[in-house]
């Protein structure tokens, strides 16, 4: 047996992440590797995107992992976050009942949305369930509406019984869509996790606008000098390391028969980020 003569207190790294990412268990998988490598303890706090950003803004965590480009930019611009790195991506999907009452299968996302809205106004059996919780997924949905030429607040919200805001997490929203035989926008990970209990099928899964990009960033140590910035840096770098990127690319294959994420490292051009953001470690 070996005895450690100087037992050092394990350092703790606090990460705030959005629920949909945490629910895939990807982070659990990766953090155990990281803990081993760095003799650290990783504490993962999963919350809605807004709350996760709030935790970051108040300096209650060291690292933030979200998927909402616009709000990330604001967060960085306000000086709360630094050193964003993109580590993975996948696509949102538009799911709905197999019967597809609006007949949107195979359409472009914007077209499908427009169709659901139009038919939904006339036919009470056509319903769209929105996350309605200012999450990354909800932001994406709003972006699609905008892309289709609608003013979200005016033309969509409260425009009729066809549009329902669930105001809950992805899982609950999927359950609700399933109960109501409605359409909804989902991230692929949660959909796959719920698939067994659902009658919903994927109807639209192609289109640039469905791109879902995940990043990790450090909380700015200039704002909160006593946060664990060294370990935070290590984590971000760990996420874009080659080994981790391999792990990400293969994660979930054993369980779902398909990967839940694509590694960002080599696809930076397709997903519209700089090379530095996917491969250059933080100094």
């Amino acid at each position, binding site marked *: 047996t070996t005895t450690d003569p100087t037992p050092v207190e394990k350092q703790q790294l606090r990460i705030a992440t959005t629920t949909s990412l945490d629910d895939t268990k990807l982070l659990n998988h990766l953090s155990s590797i990281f803990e081993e490598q760095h003799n650290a303890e990783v504490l993962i706090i999963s919350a809605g995107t807004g709350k996760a950003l709030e935790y970051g803004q108040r300096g209650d965590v060291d690292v933030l992992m979200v998927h909402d480009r616009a709000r990330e930019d604001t967060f960085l611009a306000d000086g709360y976050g630094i050193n964003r790195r993109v580590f993975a991506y996948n696509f949102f999907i538009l799911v709905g009942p197999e019967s597809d009452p609006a007949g949107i299968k195979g359409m472009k996302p914007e077209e499908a949305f427009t169709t659901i809205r139009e038919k939904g106004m006339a036919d009470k059996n056509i319903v769209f369930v929105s996350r*309605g919780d200012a999450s990354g997924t909800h932001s994406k949905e709003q972006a699609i509406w905008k892309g289709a030429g609608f003013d979200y607040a005016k033309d969509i919200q409260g425009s009729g019984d066809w549009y329902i805001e669930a*105001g*809950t997490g992805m899982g609950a929203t999927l359950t*609700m869509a399933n109960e109501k035989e409605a359409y909804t926008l989902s991230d692929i990970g949660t959909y796959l996790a719920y698939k067994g209990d659902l009658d919903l099928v994927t109807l639209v899964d192609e289109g640039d606008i469905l791109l879902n990009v995940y990043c990790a960033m450090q909380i700015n140590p200039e704002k909160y000098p006593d946060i664990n910035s060294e370990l935070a840096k290590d984590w971000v770098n760990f996420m874009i390391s080659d080994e981790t990127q391999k792990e990400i690319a293969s994660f979930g294959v054993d369980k779902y028969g398909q990967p839940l994420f694509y590694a960002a490292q080599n696809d930076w051009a397709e997903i519209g980020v700089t090379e530095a953001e996917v491969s250059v470690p933080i100094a």
Partner: protein
Amino acid sequence: MYEIVEGIAEAARLIITLDPGVMSIAARSIIVSFTATVAATLISIPLGAAINFGTFRGRTSLINLIQTLYSLPTVIVGLLIFLLISRVGPFGFMRLLFTPTAMIIAQTVLVLPIMTGLTISALSGVDTVIRDTLHSLGATRLQFLANVMKEARFAILTAVAVGFGRAISEVGAAILVGGNIMASSFSGSTRTLTTAISLETSMGNIPQSIALGTILLAIALGVNLVITRMQHR
């Protein structure tokens, strides 16, 4: 900490301007929790009386069970009701899921144990001589119960206050069977103050959450003033 002040100021603003969105949410909270409390009262009082005055085998175990159910998490209540009324559940045909009715049912089930338990405790606190006096004056079963309750009104109304408090403040069951829906119609929506607070919190809107919480407490205060008035009659 400024969020608290900001939240309370926001609450005042929402109340003064009668913000329609917030008003409809508050109204729904009141309707749902009030109905659930009334339903639970109507069940728990006869039930509590039957248990308290009854002499049957397993009485102590039953009381134990009831006390244990004080710990029933709201999410579990929500789940059980969800399983019963979801499309594939035994009552799925009634299409209750994601309606205010479902929330009422869930909250009723949720507060039943505690209201029944506190009713038993209240009734058992009534002096035996009072009970004997009522019997000796020729009270029917109903007259007996009505008068024992009158004597125990303070404690019974405490039970109601506790029940209402638990109903209006819970969120787990409401969100599972209600769904926190914001639809264009009042009756199609299931968003209540607590589910809205949850949502705002998950969105990081702390002042807005606190504003809604303040409104909820204002409602609770109103209800409790009525209850206190009745207690001291």
